[in-house]
């Protein structure tokens, strides 16, 4: 039974860790996109400004 529990925990654990990594990567990319968009918006405001 120990082997079974080890098997389940490793497999599900790996899948869980990968899930976390995916969510983290997606969140980081969303942040970068938001940053890039706000910078571009700021630049566009400068173009219209002076």
């Amino acid at each position, binding site marked *: 039974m120990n082997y*079974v529990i080890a098997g*389940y925990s490793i497999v599900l654990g790996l899948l869980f860790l990968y899930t976390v990594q995916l969510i983290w990567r997606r969140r980081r990319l969303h942040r*970068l996109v938001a940053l890039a968009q706000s910078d*571009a918006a700021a630049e566009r405001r400068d173009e219209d400004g002076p």
Partner: protein
Amino acid sequence: MSPQSAKAQFPKAQSPKALWTTRIIGMAAVVSVAFTVWLGLWITPPDKTQGDLVRLVYLHPAVAWVALYLAFGLAAVASLLYLWPRTRSLFWDRLAAAAVEVGVVFNVCTLISGSIWGRPTWGVYWTWDARLTSTALLLILFLGYMALRRVPADPEVRAKRCAFAALFAAVDVPIVHFSVLWWKTLHQGATVLNPDLSPQIHGSMAWTLLLGFVALTLVFLWMLLVRYRIGYLQDQLGTGELDTAIRQRQAEGVVPAAGSEAPGTPVSVGSPLASVAQPVEAAPVSGVIR
């Protein structure tokens, strides 16, 4: 026209339908996995011959199926669709890449779960069993694809290269399968009794097995969707990501007292970067650069 906004293409926001599809699939995946674990570890009875070890059957064949057929098959088909001129679209390339990465994870799970099942069954963690060997070789082929993908290149060049690599590997898979199978069975000396990992399944065990397949397929789908999205965002940000990251660093250390020049900025890479060294002074600086 600022060179930066000319370069950066902003990714389309995910449509609410796509967002909710992903969320629902994710929730269904979690629920079905939890259910499978509950059924597999507690409710179902142990096997006559394998005892409690049979419980691994609810996970191992399912991850194997996802890794080898679903993920790899999808990657191969998507690569073909990219190569076919009429259906060429970076969508297929990104889908293939996502499928391969998720497939690698599932492949590792397959090898580990098979190895853990093998230890009490065969006495060793690894044996050159036909299936383990083929799966290991497939993992190496998958990893090769991922390594190829990391080589910096134009998106279309990279897509074509990777699609060809996937095609060459896919074509090899049946040959590898047969050669490894024959390797075991056509061997001169008789192979020692090598108990198969497939037990006879009936009743509640059969349902749990089916549930396991469904659950892990849902997990795969969710991972695929998220990984695809990640790939899409990465491609759209492209070089803009580096600029943005540098800007982020500089914005953290901004002291809004400097003049219209961009004094002492660590970045002298190119004008688009210098123009936003100090967000507060953006107007005069960008005027200077332009």
